[in-house]
């Protein structure tokens, strides 16, 4: 019974806290806006990871979405709702172009295509100076012009990010709980077996990949119109690995894993933001979690409960051996 109300209650509390953040001041608004964007990025990678694909280049699609939305708004005064959608769709199309030929590659080869690809995107952004202003960075990105209203304050932009992220998470949650999500899980667990039941592995993996690209593109657009300055090295290999890390540190076995990982690592590094200590703590947290909590942070409550009760907290009673 407690479990039944615990989850919705927790959600309400979290959302309530999220809504109250602007009262803490602009600094915290900035911090938490980025936390929500990281959450969205981490959650968007999850379908691919569930299928068993190691994608180390996810930030490439964030980059595409960010630049597309920024340029459409800046040069053509496209309203935010359209530029966001365009950015996300472009990211998805690019994902299709990369994913379709690559998905038949096994494990580590696919991972390497993603690493190469994220660098390709970063380099294109850096070289195509006439479009993106290259490594000088793209500035002057307009504030979000949403449904006719310009969101001028950081707080209003923050609420936009929270809203879009929550909607995206709901969609991703529904996908995961459906037959589609179960099929993705089956591919990640035992793809031969899934195939023997008629699952077209390639199509499902591609779909997971494209869903991820779409939401990464959304995150990119949100980022572009919040920070209002884009700089190609921000979307390179190291950043892409962060998204992967949020998933691993949070836990890959549950939907909230990437959310927990993103929140934990983003906030942990925040007090040290700008200094090298940010990354130091970030990487130590990563290492410790991988070494000592291989299931991720979400396994922590279970382990603590186990310590308290003196045995594994949720061991099912084994059936009598036939």
């Amino acid at each position, binding site marked *: 019974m407690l479990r039944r109300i615990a989850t919705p209650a927790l959600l309400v509390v979290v959302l309530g806290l999220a809504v109250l953040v602007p009262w803490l001041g602009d600094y915290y608004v900035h911090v938490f806006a980025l936390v929500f964007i990281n959450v969205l990025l981490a959650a968007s990678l999850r379908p691919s990871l569930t299928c068993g694909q190691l994608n180390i280049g996810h930030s490439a699609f964030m980059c595409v979405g960010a630049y597309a939305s920024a340029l459409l708004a800046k040069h053509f005064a496209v309203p935010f709702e359209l530029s966001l959608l365009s950015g996300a769709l472009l990211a998805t199309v690019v994902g299709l172009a990369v994913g379709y030929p690559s998905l038949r590659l096994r494990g580590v080869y696919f991972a390497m295509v993603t690493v190469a690809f994220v660098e390709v995107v970063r380099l294109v952004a850096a070289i195509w100076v006439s479009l993106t202003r290259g490594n000088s960075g793209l500035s002057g990105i307009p504030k979000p012009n949403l449904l006719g209203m310009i969101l001028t304050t950081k707080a209003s932009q923050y609420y936009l990010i929270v809203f879009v992220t929550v909607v995206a998470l709901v*969609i991703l949650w*529904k*996908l995961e*709980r*459906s*037959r*589609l999500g*179960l*099929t993705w*899980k*089956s591919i990640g*667990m*035992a793809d*031969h*077996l*899934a*195939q*023997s*039941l*008629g*699952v*077209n*592995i390639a199509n499902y993996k591609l779909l997971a990949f494209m869903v991820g690209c779409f939401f990464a593109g959304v995150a990119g657009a949100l980022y572009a119109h919040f920070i209002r300055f884009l700089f190609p090295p921000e979307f390179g290999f190291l950043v892409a690995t962060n998204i992967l890390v949020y998933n691993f540190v949070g836990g890959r076995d549950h939907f909230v894993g990437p959310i927990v990982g993103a929140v934990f690592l983003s906030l942990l590094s925040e007090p040290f933001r700008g200094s090298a200590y940010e990354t130091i703590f970030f990487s130590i947290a990563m290492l410790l979690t991988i070494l000592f909590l291989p299931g991720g942070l979400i396994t922590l409550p279970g382990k603590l409960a186990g310590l308290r009760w003196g045995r594994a907290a949720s061991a*099912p009673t*084994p*059936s*009598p*051996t*036939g």
Partner: protein
Amino acid sequence: MPLLETRDLSKHFDGLAAVNRVDLTVEEGEIVGLIGPNGAGKTTCFNLLSGFLRPTAGTIRFDGADITGLRSHRIVKRGLVRTFQHTTLFQEMTALENVLLGLHLHSRKGLGQVLFSRRPFPRAEIHHSREVLQFVGLSAHLDQPAKNLPHGHQRILGIAMALAARPRLLLLDEPVTGMNLDESGRVMALVKTIRDRGTTILLVEHNMKAVMGTCERIVVLNFGQKLAEGTPAEVSTNPNVIEAYLGAGLEHARG
């Protein structure tokens, strides 16, 4: 017209023939056994028939159509379903979820259904999965994670999943290996019931008693080639077959 027919089916690995010009037929409604010593090529045959391996030569016809070289998910669509000896299950999922996955080809997958309906799975699919589990005798274990089931139940669950895919021809890969007398008896009885309900069966097994007691026709492979074919009585008295097995399994079965 036979339900399944192979002609000159061959598979070579680096010049070595794992399966060499095998002609196999299975008529609708039969239970056919595929036996042979270790390394005879039985599993390779299954992999070829189910599309997990491409033949180096030869053809496979199923239900009148040429399926040679088709990918496995397309072959399943036509009604040819197989089980595996190893990794037969999605271990972390419940028995019910496993069977639900078996229903993959016969399920509704619209985007609207995914995003806007209250329940993740239509009631009909859950009902049907329960029915399959009831048919194989696993109703009591619906919500158990598959990895917690005892070995015998796990193999039966594997069969249940394959059944959910509505096979016309079911390839069973070592369904009773590792089971005791009681269990194997029950599973082979289940196999007969499955056939009686309209599914043709081709099975690979090492357990000779099970094979001789259930199959109407047996094909013997050795070194990738067809060695003999016939009724259990014919095969078990065939001197070539006895020699291939050095008498071990067959003696046991006849006794």
